[in-house]
């Protein structure tokens, strides 16, 4: 289903990716890996680790969005479907070097799936048997939530499939809760 404006985002993504600084992939993967294992040691409960990863991602997301908007020069999105494409093709490309696919829209266009074929965060990783509850790359869900909140969209992002759990692709489900109107986000209000 070709959407008007869907193609250009691929190209924009690649252009921005070419301009940004890169770091060594193994260093990145190992750093993230040690974050996760440290969290697992500290919290012991895997559900709690998932929550912490999401919170960390949220903090990254609220800051990352500024960098994204400055570098990519993408204008306002007309609707949520366009937002989804921008996140998948430009956002993921710029920061992780991969493009995700947007699939499975619901009837009201408020929910979609981001499908990732491969993910630099999970390179070389093998989850031990008892870690079924752990969503290893859950930080990405937080990043999506944080970044979109800063552009006035309150979303919920959760992992539904992960290659480390045996699925062939990773899938994040993103649900639009509401469009925010000129409100200070909760994290800043509480300070």
């Amino acid at each position, binding site marked *: 289903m070709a959407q008007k404006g869907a193609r250009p985002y691929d190209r924009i993504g690649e252009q921005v990716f070419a301009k940004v600084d890169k770091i060594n992939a193994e260093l990145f993967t190992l750093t993230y*890996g*040690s974050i996760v*294992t440290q969290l697992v040691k500290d919290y012991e409960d895997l559900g709690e680790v998932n929550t912490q990863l999401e919170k960390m991602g949220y903090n990254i997301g609220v800051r990352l969005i500024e960098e994204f908007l400055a570098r990519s020069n993408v204008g306002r999105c007309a609707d949520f479907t366009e937002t989804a494409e921008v996140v998948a093709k430009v956002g993921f490309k710029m920061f992780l070097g991969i493009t995700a696919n947007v699939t499975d829209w619901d009837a009201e266009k408020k929910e979609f799936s981001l499908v990732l074929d491969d993910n630099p965060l999970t*390179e*070389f990783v*093998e*989850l031990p048997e008892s*870690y079924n509850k752990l969503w290893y790359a859950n930080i990405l869900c937080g990043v999506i939530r944080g970044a979109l909140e800063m552009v006035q969209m309150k979303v919920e992002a959760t992992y539904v499939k992960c290659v480390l759990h045996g699925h062939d692709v990773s899938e994040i489900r993103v649900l639009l809760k509401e469009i925010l109107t000129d409100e200070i986000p909760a994290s800043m209000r509480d300070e």
Partner: protein
Amino acid sequence: MGIKVVCASVIGKSNNPLYIRCFDNTEEPLKFHYIVHSALDVVEEKSTAKKGASLDLYLGMLYPTEDYRVYGYTTNSKIKFIIVVQEDGDSHDQAIKNFFRKFHVLYANTVANPFYTPDDLITSRKFNEELEKQVKTV
């Protein structure tokens, strides 16, 4: 060609076995454990014989037994790879060297897993499967 890897093993820094896998169903695994263990002495000998660090990671043939030959490869982190092969005719040094190189890369990838602590037993399923594939195509 005629090389068949019948046993592959990874030995840790203190000569503790991290991984031993036998690919020959006709023999008892214990026999291979014993062969690998005795090969460790030869490894010690070879690595301390040269003055200073030995240049080559590949140690060559460690010693021959009745139907098998044992080859060794050491890394700078004192991890040793020992394989037992069954070969007929001349030694295929180049093929063995290639196998060790791939084995080393496979080991490095397994160590990169954040859930694996170095010097632990290697229980990774991916490692097992990859090694099987490599053994088949040696």
